């Protein structure tokens, strides 16, 4: 302690601004949007030092804060970030700013509550990434369901209530089993510290059960096939901002959970069940890819493509065991992990951007049916430029961020098993098929109807949002080194942890 509580600020400043927004809504003459924008910008600003003063030579937790919280259970308010979680915190705060700007004109009903929900959620998601205490993690993990539940329920589409209750119950069901697992680990180790969990030896049966309990929680969140069914509903019904946060950040929570809990706490079980994870990942990549091709709803299509892309993330994480089995060396294992994490960040940017693009169209036309569009490029050329760019990033075109992650994962898979890599690489074709299909039908071709002809191109506000994202996607695609550099020691540390038996 004694240092500046940067991590706490990153959690509590947005929450405080969220409450402030709610209060400001009751006062006449205050535009709540500015309060929310200032709040999100301040949060982003205070999270920048996390990157600039990050020590990329060590895998140890940094900016650590620790204070007793519930002494009866030995729970502490224990925060810290490493190279895996720090980029995700930045991503969260970055996307929140964009979401606030994106909702500027669109949201008219209870605007203050809308902005407040996103700010509070940003704080809670930062909390998930920063917690080093399992109970604190769980509290943030569950708490962020509440604002999302409200966001989908109030500002969502026609079937929003069905979608939001399904979303809540699905994720709640997944997480309660994790809670039992956490309490079990607490009774074994005598504390809720995640690092203590990672170091304690556990028997094989217990490891398998723990792994499965964690898997239920994280698989629902990621989402992995076959527990992905809540995602298309939630995405389709959520307002644009909700979809963006859902795709960009919330899905990453599950993948982050695998990295922080499943792999290091139950390495032997992860090893034993790697076949399950790889098969589920491949099914997500192939089967969901095919499902995406036949979608008629733009949002649903992107939602399914998210599931397929997250399949890459899980594949990259669990392929490491197979690499070691095949080559007998650790060389190349880190590449799978690196690829998975780069893919997480990249997917956050790209899927968020795609949902924002669809939002731009939806705000003008109030339909998400692909068939209602056609020839949009004629009336919205600038928009079409961005949409094509993000579409290409989604297919993994070299030069965009999408390429880096997928390429690393496929390369790692080749070291492990030719056929796995072969099957995974099919995604490049499938991804191109559904994304290009979407672009073709929406943007190109003859102008579909008068409403499309009358479309106005994007406003400066929309240009700002999409432009910033486009820069990020290109920067990460051309030069991913700043990201890979900070996470390298943590990933190496994780790979070593995973390879050491805890029996």
């Amino acid at each position, binding site marked *: 302690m004694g240092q500046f509580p940067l991590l706490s600020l990153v959690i509590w400043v947005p929450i405080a601004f969220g409450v402030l927004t709610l209060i400001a809504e009751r006062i006449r003459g205050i535009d709540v949007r500015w309060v929310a924008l200032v709040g999100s910008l301040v949060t982003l600003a205070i999270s920048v030092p996390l990157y600039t003063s990050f020590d990329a030579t060590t895998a140890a937790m940094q900016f650590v804060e620790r204070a007793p919280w519930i*002494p009866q259970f030995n729970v502490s308010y224990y925060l810290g970030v490493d190279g895996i979680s720090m980029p995700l915190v930045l991503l969260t705060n970055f996307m929140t700013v964009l979401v606030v700007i994106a909702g500027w004109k669109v949201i008219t009903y209870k605007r203050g509550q809308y902005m407040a929900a996103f700010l509070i959620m940003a704080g809670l998601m930062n909390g998930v990434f920063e917690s080093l205490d399992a109970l604190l993690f769980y509290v*943030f993990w569950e708490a962020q369901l509440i604002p999302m539940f409200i966001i989908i329920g109030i500002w969502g589409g026609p079937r*929003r209530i069905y979608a939001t*209750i399904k979303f809540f*119950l699905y994720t709640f069901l997944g997480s309660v089993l994790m809670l039992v697992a956490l*309490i079990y680990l607490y009774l074994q180790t005598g504390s809720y510290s995640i690092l203590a969990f990672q170091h304690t030896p556990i028997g094989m049966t217990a490891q398998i059960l723990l792994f499965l309990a964690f898997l239920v929680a994280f698989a629902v969140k990621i989402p992995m096939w076959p527990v992905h069914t809540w995602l298309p509903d939630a995405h389709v019904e959520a307002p644009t901002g909700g979809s963006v946060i859902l795709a960009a950040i919330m899905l990453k929570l599950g993948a982050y959970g695998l990295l922080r809990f499943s792999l290091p706490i139950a390495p032997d079980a992860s090893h034993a069940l790697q076949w399950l994870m790889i098969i589920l990942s491949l099914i997500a990549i192939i089967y969901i890819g095919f499902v995406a091709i036949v979608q008629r709803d733009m949002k649903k299509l992107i939602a399914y493509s998210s599931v397929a892309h997250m399949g890459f993330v899980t594949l990259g994480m669990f392929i490491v065991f197979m690499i070691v089995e095949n080559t007998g060396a650790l060389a190349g294992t880190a590449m799978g992990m690196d690829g998975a994490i780069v893919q997480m960040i990249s997917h956050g940017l790209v899927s968020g951007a795609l949902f924002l693009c669809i939002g731009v169209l939806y705000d003008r036309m109030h339909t998400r049916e692909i068939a209602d569009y056609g020839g949009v490029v004629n009336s919205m050329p600038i928009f079409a430029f961005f949409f094509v760019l993000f579409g290409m990033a989604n297919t993994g075109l070299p030069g965009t961020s999408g390429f880096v992650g997928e390429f690393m994962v496929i390369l790692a898979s080749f070291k492990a098993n030719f056929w796995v890599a072969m099957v995974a690489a099919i995604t490049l074709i499938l991804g191109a098929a559904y994304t290009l299909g979407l672009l073709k039908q929406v943007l190109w071709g003859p102008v579909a109807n008068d409403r499309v002809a009358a479309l106005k191109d994007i406003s400066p506000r929309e240009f700002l949002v999409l432009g910033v994202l486009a820069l990020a996607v290109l920067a990460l695609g051309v030069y991913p080194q700043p990201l890979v550099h900070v996470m390298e020691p943590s990933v190496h540390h994780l790979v070593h942890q995973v390879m050491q038996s805890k029996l």
Partner: protein
Amino acid sequence: MNFTAPAFAPAIPEMFVFGMACFILLVDVYAGERRRVVTYWLSLATLAGAAWLTASLTPTTQITFDGMFVNDKLAQALKLFTYVITAAVFLYSRDYLQQRNQFKGEFYVLGLFGMLGVMILISAHSLLTLYIGLELLSLCQYALIALDRDNGVASESAMKYFILGAVASAILLYGMSILYGITGTLDLGQLALFIAGTGFAQIGLIFAVGFVVVALAFKFGAVPFHMWLPDVYEGARTPITLYVGSIPKIAAFVMFIRLLAQGLGGLHPSWEQMLIAISVLSMAVGSVLAIAQTNMKRMLGYSTISHVGYILLGILAGTQIGYEAAMFYTITYVIMATAAFGMVILLSRRGFEGDMIADFKGLNERSPWFAAMMLCVMFGMTGAPPFLGFFAKLYVIEAVLNVGLVWLAVVAVLFAVISAFYYLRVVKFMYFDHSDDKTPLEGGWDLKWVLSGNSLAILALGIAPAPLMALCVHAFGF
């Protein structure tokens, strides 16, 4: 034959409440209709006085009146909590009762006498004291429900409660008489010594335990002895439901502790099995049946049943942590239930009860503040962090895991997911639906302020649960 006066000091709060209740009864007769507010303020003053007296007792275990009465840390903590909740009941209901010409002195006098029953129960150290306290509480409750005598539904539920309650009391007495027959003592301390001395459980003792558990489960409203609970909750006037739904839960919890844990603790293996069955059934029936309800009070009734299942989880663990967890859960539940029924009172106005779940429609448009308060209550009951309800569930689940009942913990969390649905439905009505009813909420200052504090407490104690946990640990510390 020499007579020594017993130590009266540990029972001073009870005597004070008894005296004040009689005094208020008299004052009320002479004060008349127009100065009824005097009764209201005197009742609140009684609670404050009792709190002061209780707090100033020495926090050591003192047994007096020939082993009939005990004052210990548990008793002190629970009594103080009982005063707070009784005060909340009085504060919430003033406006409601005034609007319906139900603002009668009897409400306060019966309320105080019922609370006295709870106090006696809390301090019971003998089967007899326990029974007296229970009956005092129960009779006041029957009378309170029937207070609105022109209301057919209320009379019906009072009658139902009375008959079923009398049967349960009879069963309890029967169990107690068997215990007395075998052990020859009514004193809970000596009972525990006797059981520890016999080494193994006699069949007669197990019989007695069976009767006792049935009666206690009835008073708590646990399945399969829950039939009365939803009807009574729905039939009684909302302030009475508030009373019946909050304070007796403390009494039921303390009966479990005094009788089963302290008196019959040696027979833990035999009552553990019964409680496991009752607990799982309560969680199941409460969670599933609440889904089908349209009446808010009835839904809260079923939700009570499922919460009772969780409280029993802590008790059946039979460990120090288990009892602490059960106490924590009871306190949490009572705080949340008080707020929930308070919210129903807030929605009601002259000629409109506001007790249907659909009446919560569009509350976010009518009053964003109270919609947010109800949000805290509902997510608290769901057991979602960072609300207090989460830590209550955490505590009991940990207690259950601690004794190795992993399957029970898994069952418990699964039912928590099922019950989440109907709490979410209330949130859905408040936030996602629009209502034609745009009337601003009525309600006195006392209701609005205290209700806000009560709901915020669910959030605040959830963010900082350590003090409340420390209190529970303290209560069971020696």
